[in-house]
């Protein structure tokens, strides 16, 4: 039921959160390959196949980007801005997954074109539920835009 070509990019700097998110996604029976970027710059390198991720040139874009907001080097909102300003990644589904429930983060996130905003709950059971719904919705229900959007 899961297409192994549909890569998920997880942008997360906290190793604990990374492990827990990966665990939650796996527990939701998502078999998609998950790539992890540990800061904002690495995330953009991955998406635009440059720097340490130059080898990715020619590979398709990930199906979904799960983006934390508080990141070293370039924060999540900066990553989102860069994604939305590049024609190729303009329509890439980006889900913000963060601890913050600050109103200004929500507003900036949506302003910059986030597709979804999910708050990481402390209770891991709730987190599992959230990850499951996320996976089902974005990887199975949601219809993605064509690779090269018409100009």
């Amino acid at each position, binding site marked *: 039921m899961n297409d192994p070509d549909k890569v998920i990019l997880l942008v997360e700097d906290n190793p*604990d959160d990374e492990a827990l998110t990966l665990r939650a996604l796996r527990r939701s029976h998502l078999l998609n390959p998950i790539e992890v970027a540990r800061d904002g710059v690495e995330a953009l390198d991955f998406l635009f196949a440059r720097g340490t991720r130059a080898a990715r040139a020619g590979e398709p874009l990930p199906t979904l980007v799960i983006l934390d907001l508080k990141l070293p080097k370039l924060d999540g909102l900066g990553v989102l801005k860069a994604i939305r300003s590049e024609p190729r990644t303009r329509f890439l589904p980006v889900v913000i997954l963060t601890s*913050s429930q600050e109103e200004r983060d929500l507003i900036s996130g949506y302003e910059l074109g986030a597709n979804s905003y999910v708050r990481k709950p*402390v*209770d*891991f059971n709730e*987190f599992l539920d959230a990850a499951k719904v996320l996976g089902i919705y974005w990887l199975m229900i949601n219809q993605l835009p064509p690779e090269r959007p018409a100009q």
Partner: protein
Amino acid sequence: MKISTTGRIITATTLGTIVLIAAMVGWAQAEVSAADLQRLRAGEITRALSNLRLVTFESILHRPERARLQEQQAAAHLDQLLSNGPFAQADPSTSLVALRERAAAAHRLFTELVRPGVDGDVDIVAEQRYLAQLTTRLLLQHQEIANDAFQLADYTRARIDAAQRRLIFVILGGLSLLALTTALAAWLIHGKVLRPLRRIEEGTQEVAAGNLDFRLDFSSNDEIGRMARNFDAMTDALRGSFAQIERSNHELGALNKEMEAFSYSVSHDLRAPLRSMDGFSLSLLEDYSDKLDDEGRDSLVRIRNASQRMGRLIDELLGLARVTRTELKVRQVDLSAMVREIAESLQQRQPERSVQWQIDDGIEVRADRALLHIALQNLLENAWKFTARTEAPVIRVGTVAHDGQPACFVGDNGVGFDMSYADRLFGAFQRMHHESEFPGTGIGLAIVQRIFHRHEAAVWAHSAPGQGATFYFKFRDTHDERPRQGHPAG
């Protein structure tokens, strides 16, 4: 010079001028009266003189003894007229002195003329010639005296004229002086009072419009100058105060930013470790359950509960901070409808509970909708929570008169609390019950209080253990459309 001093000088000058004019009128009056007396006397002198001449001629022509006596009387009368009365003090008129001398001389001549002659031994012809000579000299003397008398009359007339001229001159001069002082006063009032006043008026308008840099900068040392300096000092002080307020606001803004950064950091960073604790504890429970005994599993459950509780605490603390930071957007809110909506959601969350809601209709308040919702949510959740063990739970929301004004209340018939701890009721982390009995973080009522305080609304509670609790809050203008009813539940 001070304006009051100037005013006094002008008043003194005016009064002085008026007094001077009055004095001059008085003097002129006296002068005219005196001159008039002299004129009358001059007339009398003239009349006496002509009488003297008459009797003198009669005596010369007919030599009767009666005429000689009459001449003596007339001469004495003339002498009296000349030496007494208005001409007594030998006036500037030299003619008077001459007149007196001539009158005396005339009298001597007359006496000589009428002296009885010595018969026989005197030459008749010589005698006749001598008498004719005397007569001629007497006539000439009389003519001179008449001239002098006319001069005296002329002098008195001249004196009256002079007095009148001087009076006119003084009146004209005084009036000119009065006109001058009036003009000076008008000029001074305009220059020293009206123009500065206009500028002060301008200044007050400028300052009222918010231009605190406006300065009058008057250099004069009079009352208005002092007032202007006080005005400048006042605007300076105002400017200082405003600058101080601005600085304070700036500092407050900085503090607020700092607090926001702090909240942001708390929101992000403090929750992450909790997630790890909860998440990895659950992983252990799920993946290694078979290797753990009951105590191990219980410990992990406790870790998870503690993490989740701390997560809730952090969330509520952030909520408390947000209540303080949020900008108030006050508008008319239908409190009854809001309460009903919250009640419904509570009922939906625990449909197995049966609570009797008594919510009065038509309660409207002016408040920030979002914050009022948070406050009511907390109050109603408390009422809901603390009636959990009550047999027939009732939650009432309505208004009641307090100090002549309506106050809203949320009352229940739940466990209540001991009023002796009421002072701690609204403090953060203050709890009236064990958490094992009734779960909660102890921040809810702190949030409620802060929300009502931000609305400048009073909030207080009344309760007794086992008899429910009622929380009252009073906005400045609670609008209650329904008719007055009984007392709140609880």
